[in-house]
């Protein structure tokens, strides 16, 4: 069954839609960034606020995650139930969370509901009720999520690794601590709300099928009356590299490593990222081939570039059964070391092709696009266009990569393992 559509005229002729993020800063300091995806019936929004475990007061670790939960439990004239019902009546899919340096609220909805959704979405930060009656439940949920972490060794590893790697408060767990959570009072978390729910330094990113004038008008209407100065986050400081083993009764040993990398957004960061993609960008990359395909040591192994504000670092992960932990880590480290010997032209080409192709595909999703814009403005201070990122990746040459890896030998990483018994000395000295 064939169609009379002249498909050959379509294939190869990608519609050149201008993918330029539009940015505006409201008088109150809130940055709004939007990318139009006019073919979509939906709009996704991400609101990022500059508070997280990093800003928790000493002794009250977990304040940010409790605030993030509490502020969603009623706002303006609406109590918790009425607010939730109002958003869901509009078909809004909500999300978000509280992390190390930022806390976010996300919403996806049909573009036709934009004007109805925005005031409700904004009210959670502009006029949260923070009712006493909702406080205990919000705290109790945070306590339970912390307890659940014990049953998720892979998530626990990330917390333990960052705690060992980062010396500044960014190393604190976004889940808080049992003591910190127990010490919280409604008055204290209200004070955190007063300090942190501020437009300065916050970013509202949207993407989808609405035009900029509509988006800006709706955002201005909903967020324009919000007032206050933001807080300054401390800079990132790295701890002394070393090895640590956390005893946990699990079937697999979780292996994590971290070391500092180039500042995000710099040319060097693009080169570093391309090199990392040769190492671990795909199932044909070096790590997957050597650790899993040739030796069958793991199901999961990877290395990737991560950013805190103004700070880039590389994280490596592998999970394997205890008797194979030594070999897994040894092969992992050997591959990291071998990178300094250089990559081939074919490897470089494949890594770049994968990165460029992934950019196109992520650009088809409204929520992925809103998330990318929000992260850019939050971490780099501006939203890059897809064309800019594409051009930067395309511009990375074989000489760039090979000079970079030759002059940037693997720094001593922080290595944390988590698993049953103390695994052999090679892993955890």
């Amino acid at each position, binding site marked *: *069954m064939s169609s009379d559509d002249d498909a050959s005229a379509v294939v190869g002729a990608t519609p050149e839609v201008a993918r330029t993020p539009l940015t505006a800063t409201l008088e109150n300091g809130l940055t709004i960034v939007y990318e139009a995806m006019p073919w979509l019936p939906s709009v996704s929004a991400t609101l990022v606020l500059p508070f997280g475990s990093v800003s928790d007061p000493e002794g009250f670790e977990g304040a940010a995650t409790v605030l993030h939960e509490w502020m969603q439990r009623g706002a303006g004239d609406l109590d918790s139930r009425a607010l*939730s019902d109002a958003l869901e009546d509009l078909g809004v899919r909500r999300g978000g969370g509280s992390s190390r340096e930022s806390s976010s609220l996300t919403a996806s909805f049909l573009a*036709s509901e934009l004007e109805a959704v925005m005031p409700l979405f904004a009210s959670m930060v502009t006029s949260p009720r923070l009712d006493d009656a909702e406080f205990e439940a919000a705290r*109790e949920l945070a306590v*339970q999520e912390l307890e659940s972490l014990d*049953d998720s060794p892979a998530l626990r590893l990330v917390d333990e690794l960052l705690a060992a790697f980062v010396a500044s408060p960014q190393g604190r767990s976004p889940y808080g601590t049992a003591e910190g959570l127990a010490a919280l009072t409604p008055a204290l978390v209200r004070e955190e709300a007063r300090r942190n729910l501020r437009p300065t330094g916050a970013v509202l990113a949207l993407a989808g099928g609405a035009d900029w004038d509509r988006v800006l008008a709706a955002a201005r209407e909903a967020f324009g009356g919000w007032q206050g100065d933001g807080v300054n986050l401390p800079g990132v400081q790295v701890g002394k590299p070393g090895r640590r083993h956390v005893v946990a009764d*699990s*079937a697999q040993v979780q292996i994590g490593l971290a070391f500092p990398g180039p500042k995000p957004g710099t040319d060097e960061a693009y080169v570093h990222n391309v090199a990392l993609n040769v190492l671990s960008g795909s199932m*044909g990359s070096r790590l997957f*081939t050597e650790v899993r395909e040739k030796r069958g040591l793991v199901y999961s192994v990877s290395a990737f570039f991560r950013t805190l504000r103004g700070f880039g670092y590389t994280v490596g992960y592998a999970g394997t059964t205890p008797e194979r932990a030594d070999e897994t880590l040894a092969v992992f480290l050997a591959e990291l070391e071998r990178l300094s010997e250089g990559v081939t032209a074919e490897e470089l080409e494949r890594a770049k092709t994968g990165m460029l192709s992934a950019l196109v595909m992520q650009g088809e999703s409204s929520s992925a696009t809103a998330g990318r814009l929000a992260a850019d403005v939050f971490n780099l201070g501006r939203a890059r266009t897809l064309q800019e990122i594409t051009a930067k990746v395309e511009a990375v040459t074989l000489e760039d990569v090979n000079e970079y890896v030759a002059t940037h030998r693997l720094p001593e990483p922080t290595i944390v393992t988590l698993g049953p018994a103390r695994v052999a000395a090679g892993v955890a000295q």
Partner: protein
Amino acid sequence: MTRAPVDDATPLAGEVAQRLRFDKAVLDNGLAVIGEHNAGAASVAAGFFVHTGARDETPEVAGVSHFLEHMVFKGNERYTAEDINRTFDELGAQYNAFTSEERTVYYGAVLPERLPQLIDLLAELMRPALRQEDFDVEKKVILEEIAMYEDRPHFHVFDISAPLFWSGHPLGNSVLGTKESIGALTREQMLEYFRRRYSPQNLVLAVSGRYDWDAVLEQAERIAGAWPTFEAPRERPEAETAAGRDGVVDPKLNRVHVAYYAPGIAMTDPRRYAAAVLGNVLGDSSGSRLYWELVDKGLADNASLGHEANEDQGAFVGYVSVAPERAEDVIARYQEVLARAQAEPPTPEEWRRAQRKLATGLTLRAETPLGRLTSLGATYQSLGVYQSVAEVVDRVMNAQLETGLELLAARPFDASFVFTLGPGSHEAPR
């Protein structure tokens, strides 16, 4: 093309729907080739949907479908494993595969000009050599995967409880298998399974996004037209599901992980949209009755329920994560919420809210060709029909509350099965 009620104020949704075109052909050997063409897409996704999974396994070869899914990436006479991975990379493909109880799917997404090479490569996967040395290495990877999921009790609790709920029905079979079944599995057993299940008439090649249909069809004919065909029927025994309580104690756990099951309806039952709405009213992760009773109050950090429709059977499936000392109270409340729904059914407001949430979720998932591919292929494979996203949204928005009441009148939650996996300080009546 049906227009959904939610489209009324959203001309864009209608425009998108009208740009879509469904293509379909069946080769002489029974291989179905289908496509949903979207001229506005920037990428294209393609996948082979194999109508085989854990439910088609005998106990001796438990886990073979999933192990085989890994093995097809090891290549054949023309491609080594490294060749396969390298070629996917050269195409810039986002690709993977998954195995469920009912199907095994191999898929990838690329820029439109690279679709022919992607289909070539996916087709090579369907003709694997299953070499002994690859089998031996990959067996270790599968055993690591089993160990990994053991460390994920929210997953593991379903793996160990499903066989009990389904009482020997093959829908309860574990996708992963066990250390023992995988340890004992031989290459010959896998080859025998492959030869019995991977027939062209048991396969669908699905494409979504921007493509040239004539070229796709010509290529499919050229590559796969000569694949020998044979009958590969699926056994469909009647299910008699279990009710009551059971559990396993694992002292290393910190929380009690609860799997909940109640009888549901099949994918072929037209009431399945109403069942999905009902499941959402009762157990969506936010704003549902279970959410307000348990999560909002801080009694459990997760308490959810949804309806899962399989080809010939379905179930309401739920999950709770709770502190051991609260487990019995929370399980009782969870069951009470569902039992009460049989007497106090959803209000029109609750029903409408759930419909709209589901509609938004469906629309968002379909934004990308890769996000669209799974439902396109699975619906065609299991039901033999094409359904656009607009049509599914339409069915959800038109699902009647009366149908929900009819489902509740059968009192499904009276026949629930509750399984706990926890540290043992809670009381689990056996």
